[in-house]
């Protein structure tokens, strides 16, 4: 479904993505692990189109999308959430989700219909709000919402466009154990045909929700395998448990 071939990205003389190749099957849940600075977010920026690769190719359903812009890739079904909240701060949570739902449905250009009164969009907003546990807070201004709620909305925005591939950049960063549990629940209840790539630091979550795990370090993919294989892999153990040098 989504394929990355020999992707490279350099900033000046520093190569931050080194010959990364990945292949995702439809409906697959892939967790990308790796220490800070491993190039995970850069990989997402390359996938979403916010950065252009120095070389290499990205294919969606077998067709190259490397030349497409951010919005074109989103319209092709690729949706992302951000590590740092990137919301419509001065609007309400409902309006945030509504904008995303309208964008997902391509209802952004009409001069007649008010999307705030569009029942089909309202249904999507209600459903996504339910999924990310924001149903009771729809009419709160985002800037007045708690950090945890904003984190939930960050994922909600990505979901409301009804993507085929969902890229989530550390969806649980900065939230407590209660919310991580809630996030487990959210993932378990998402449709099985939705392909998901998650950057995650929480190992329990990673092992629990993923079909396959990709481990990155210094811009390279150093390991790929099932959660069981990953658990037993010494490289992964070095990075996460004890070998400080790898994290430097």
């Amino acid at each position: 479904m989504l394929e990355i071939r020999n992707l490279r990205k350099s900033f000046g003389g520093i190569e931050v993505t080194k010959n990364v190749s990945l292949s995702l099957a439809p409906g697959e849940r892939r967790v990308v692990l790796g220490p800070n600075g491993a190039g995970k977010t850069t990989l997402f920026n390359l996938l979403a189109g916010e950065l252009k690769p120095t070389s290499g190719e990205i294919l969606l359903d077998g067709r190259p999308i490397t030349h497409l812009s951010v919005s074109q890739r989103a319209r092709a079904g690729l949706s992302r959430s951000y590590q740092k909240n990137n919301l419509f701060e001065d609007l309400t949570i409902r309006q945030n989700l509504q904008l995303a739902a309208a964008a997902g449905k391509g209802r952004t250009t009409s001069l007649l219909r008010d999307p705030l009164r569009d029942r089909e969009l309202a249904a999507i907003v209600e459903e996504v709000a339910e999924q990310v546990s924001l149903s009771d807070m729809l009419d709160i201004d985002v800037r007045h919402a708690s950090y945890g709620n904003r984190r939930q909305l960050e994922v909600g925005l990505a979901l409301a466009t009804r993507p085929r591939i969902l890229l989530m950049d550390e969806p649980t960063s900065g939230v407590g154990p209660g919310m991580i549990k809630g996030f487990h629940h959210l993932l378990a209840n998402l449709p099985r045909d939705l392909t998901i790539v998650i950057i995650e630091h929480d190992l329990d979550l990673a092992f629990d929700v993923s079909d396959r795990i990709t481990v990155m370090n210094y811009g390279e993919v150093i390991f790929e395998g099932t959660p069981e294989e990953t658990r037993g892999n010494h490289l992964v153990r070095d990075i996460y448990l004890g070998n400080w040098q790898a994290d430097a």
Partner: protein
Amino acid sequence: MVMFQQTRTHTAVCLAILAALLLYAVMGGYFAREIVVEIAILAILAISLDIVAGYGGMVSLFHGAIMGAAAYGYGVLTVKFEMHPLPAAFLGVALAAIFGTLVGAIVANTAGIFYIMATLAFGQMAYTMVFQSRWLGGDDGLAGLPRFDFEAIGIDMNDPLAFALFAIVLVILVYLAAAGLLRSAFGRTLCGIHSNEARMRALGVSTWIPKMRALGTSSLLAGIAGILAAQHTQYISPELLHWTVSGEVLIVVILGGLGTLTGALVGAVAFVALKHGVGGYTDHWHIVVGIMLIAVVLAGGRGLFGQCHHLLRQRANRSANATGDGSKSHA
């Protein structure tokens, strides 16, 4: 920035202003009717600017030039080509819309101060072009522009009262068009782009087209102000296109309340009232406008209407909390 909603406060203030204008035009004499038309022209221009500046976050400094383009289009077609006023007015408005769309296509990828400067540059180019063109009358301008001819339905547009009423009708139509636009999918998208353009793109909206379209649509409405201005004095000069006209409209919108739509009406009334009220005593009436502008900006930048609306909403929230509204308390 708030997404547009025609609240009861909006409607009440709009109706009050329209009633006042109507009363002033009907009861007042020639001078009053002139003032009503002056307010109407400024209000239409301010509404058109509020769409891009208030809701789209794109501060344009060439709305005077857009208005001038429509006025000159109308003037040339009626005076030089002796075209009938009605089709000439449509073509004049179309010219303004095309001008705005083309500039919009070029400046859509700039933001902030660069957007202001780019639009200023295009406006001054248009001003200079008109100023230097002998054919367009240069700095002498063009005289002898006709008004619409509604004799067939028994309306004499040369009658100051009829013309003032016509101007009020245009204000109503432009306000309704702007409100409809801001409530449409396109208007909501525009607000989303204002709030967070990068996220809109990540959601799948290519932001260049709506930004261009916003300036084009705003220019269409500004063009209507241009036609009204041209027919009002039946004379046009390059001064109409000068950047100070654009600056003045921006002041009007900020004074009334940027991003409130109704504020554009309030600002236009306040500005013209100050001009003639204070202007009767001193030539330095701009000082009073300046002091008011500073006061409005220091009070939070919400503008005359925006500030009132804000205070009313706060009071409503307080009384809702005081009566122990249970449905809200758990949030």
